């Protein structure tokens, strides 16, 4: 095995100047919320560490994660990260195609056994032996398992890889299955969202490449630094929520005033993502800022949780869709009527002398 290039060498080879490199290091520190003191540390790591190769696989997906990724706010970050990634295998971004591409994949797996990071966009459908998603003539699930076997860690890009997303929505005919249910023996970093925010994606991958370790994960395997809080916790409309000021109808005065979207079904209170802090499209805006509630795109099974305009999930078990309050009032009404009827019968029985208990009350 020949000398493995360092990150710095790769960047220089890709035509990135020393000046840009240093800028990249400080941008990275800032993006990860680290102090400027970390900049030399990052630079040092990049100059001396052998480059960590990244394989980027695509299963059942719509490529929105890649689309998001290549729109990362700072062109420098994007260029640098891309230059490090596309070298290896990403059938959307790399130059090679067909057999050449599959060879590149095999080469990387062989050469960097146990060293490379596997990034997966989309998920494998397991029904019919995986025939619903074929890559290079073979079911994607086989390619995934094969590539994961010698990977150091796996990144699950987007809600598809993390939870299943739309292709796994009920009744899930192809049996699309999230990565962590197929690959069970590797550390998996979930970066959910439909798509995830570009800066979150570059942030996660830069962290892993520069520090050579996984970011701190939460209970469900999401990096805490971006998924530690709900949209609702950092939403700029939150003061209106606490004040009790809501948009009641989409076209009312309160919508124009920018009040909280809770009553029109905003899922910010149940959604973990960085939209309300990092925002989208170079920090321009995010759905709530544009006047629409969060639809919970980064949450498990968000397609199956009912309408995008209800905060709670409707319950289908009763034939017609009912929300918790409708069911509650109906059942409580039924019990109330039963109680009233029971009370009436009790009273009649008592009056008609059927009950002799109280006659001889001694207490």
């Amino acid at each position, binding site marked *: 095995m020949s000398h493995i290039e360092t990150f710095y060498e790769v960047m220089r080879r890709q035509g990135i100047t020393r000046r840009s490199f240093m800028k990249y290091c400080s941008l990275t520190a800032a993006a990860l919320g680290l102090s400027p003191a970390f900049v030399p540390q990052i630079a040092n790591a990049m100059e001396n560490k052998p480059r960590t190769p990244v394989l980027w696989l695509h299963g059942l997906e719509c490529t929105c994660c890649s689309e998001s990724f290549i729109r990362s706010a700072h062109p420098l970050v994007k260029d640098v990260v891309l230059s490090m990634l596309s070298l290896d295998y990403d059938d959307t971004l790399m130059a090679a195609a067909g057999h050449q591409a599959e060879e590149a994949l095999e080469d990387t797996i062989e050469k960097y056994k146990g060293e490379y990071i596997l990034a997966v966009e989309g998920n494998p459908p397991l029904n019919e032996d995986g025939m619903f998603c074929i890559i290079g003539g073979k079911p994607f699930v086989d390619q995934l398992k094969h590539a994961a076997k010698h990977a150091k860690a796996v990144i699950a890009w987007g809600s598809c890889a993390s939870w299943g997303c739309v292709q796994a929505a009920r009744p899930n005919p192809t049996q699309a299955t999230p990565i962590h249910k197929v690959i069970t023996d590797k550390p998996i970093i979930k970066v959910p969202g439909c798509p995830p925010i570009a800066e979150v994606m570059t942030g996660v991958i830069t962290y892993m490449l520069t520090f050579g370790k996984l970011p701190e994960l939460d209970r469900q395997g999401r990096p805490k630094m971006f998924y530690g809080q709900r949209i609702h916790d950092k939403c700029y409309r939150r003061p209106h929520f606490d004040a009790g000021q809501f948009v009641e109808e989409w076209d009312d005065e309160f919508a124009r005033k920018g009040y909280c979207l809770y009553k029109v079904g905003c899922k910010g209170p149940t959604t973990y993502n960085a939209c309300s802090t990092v925002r989208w499209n170079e920090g321009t805006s995010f759905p709530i800022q544009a006047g629409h509630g969060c639809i919970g795109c980064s949450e498990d099974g968000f397609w199956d949780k009912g309408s995008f305009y209800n905060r709670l999930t409707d319950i289908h078990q009763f034939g017609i869709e009912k929300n918790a309050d409708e069911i509650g009032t109906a059942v409580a009404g039924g019990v109330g009527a039963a109680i009233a009827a*029971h009370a009436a019968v009790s009273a009649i029985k008592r009056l008609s002398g059927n009950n002799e208990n109280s006659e001889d009350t001694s*207490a």
Partner: protein
Amino acid sequence: MSEQSVKAEQPAATVPAAEGDSDMLVRRQTAVYVYEAPLRLWHWITVACITVLCITGYFIGSPLPTMPGEASDNFLMGYIRFAHFAAGYIVTIAFIGRIYWAFVGNSHARELFILPITKKSWYKELWHEMRWYMFLEKTPKKYIGHNPMGQSAMFVFFVLGLTFMIFTGFALYGEGLGYDSWASQMFGWIIPLMGQSQDVHTWHHLGMWYIILFIMSHIYVAVREDIMSRQSLISTMVGGWRMFKDDRPD
């Protein structure tokens, strides 16, 4: 009122007779001290808290009409949520205290948590009580503690229901406090278990209706039994003494 031990299941002074009115065991028993002070205090604290929790919980789910004026002049949702969390804390601490009391209190303090499901006679009495409620029995049996039907309902609806509400409630509470908070550390695992945060909200909300069903039936039964059964109820939960209305056997 004398405090006699009514535990005497086969009292010496029983005079079985042949027919009619005299077909009863003659026994003097008027009042027994069943619910000790801490238990009664707990009951009424819980009543107050759960009332607050249901009202504020409902308005968290379906907030009141929008407040006029500046956001900085209002804090309605904030107050409603604060009341919910404060009552949530109190009801939880009181419930822990109630569990403690089951260990140190009298035998009636344990009835809420332990159903005598291994006792055959208990099922017979449960059936009898159900028939009494279906107007198929002329007289209910006497109970010093809870009757089997009340006891089952209290366990299934109240103990299980409140435990569910406390667990899901603190899981949701931990989301607001933050990932490293004690509530998130202790109860956060519930969220992925139920799917995601939205599912926990939905179930917590449904749980309220489950508890409301208990409250409706419970109050009805308490009032009805107070009038129609052979012992006192409401005054028992106030003063602790169970009064019996007749001297006939159980």
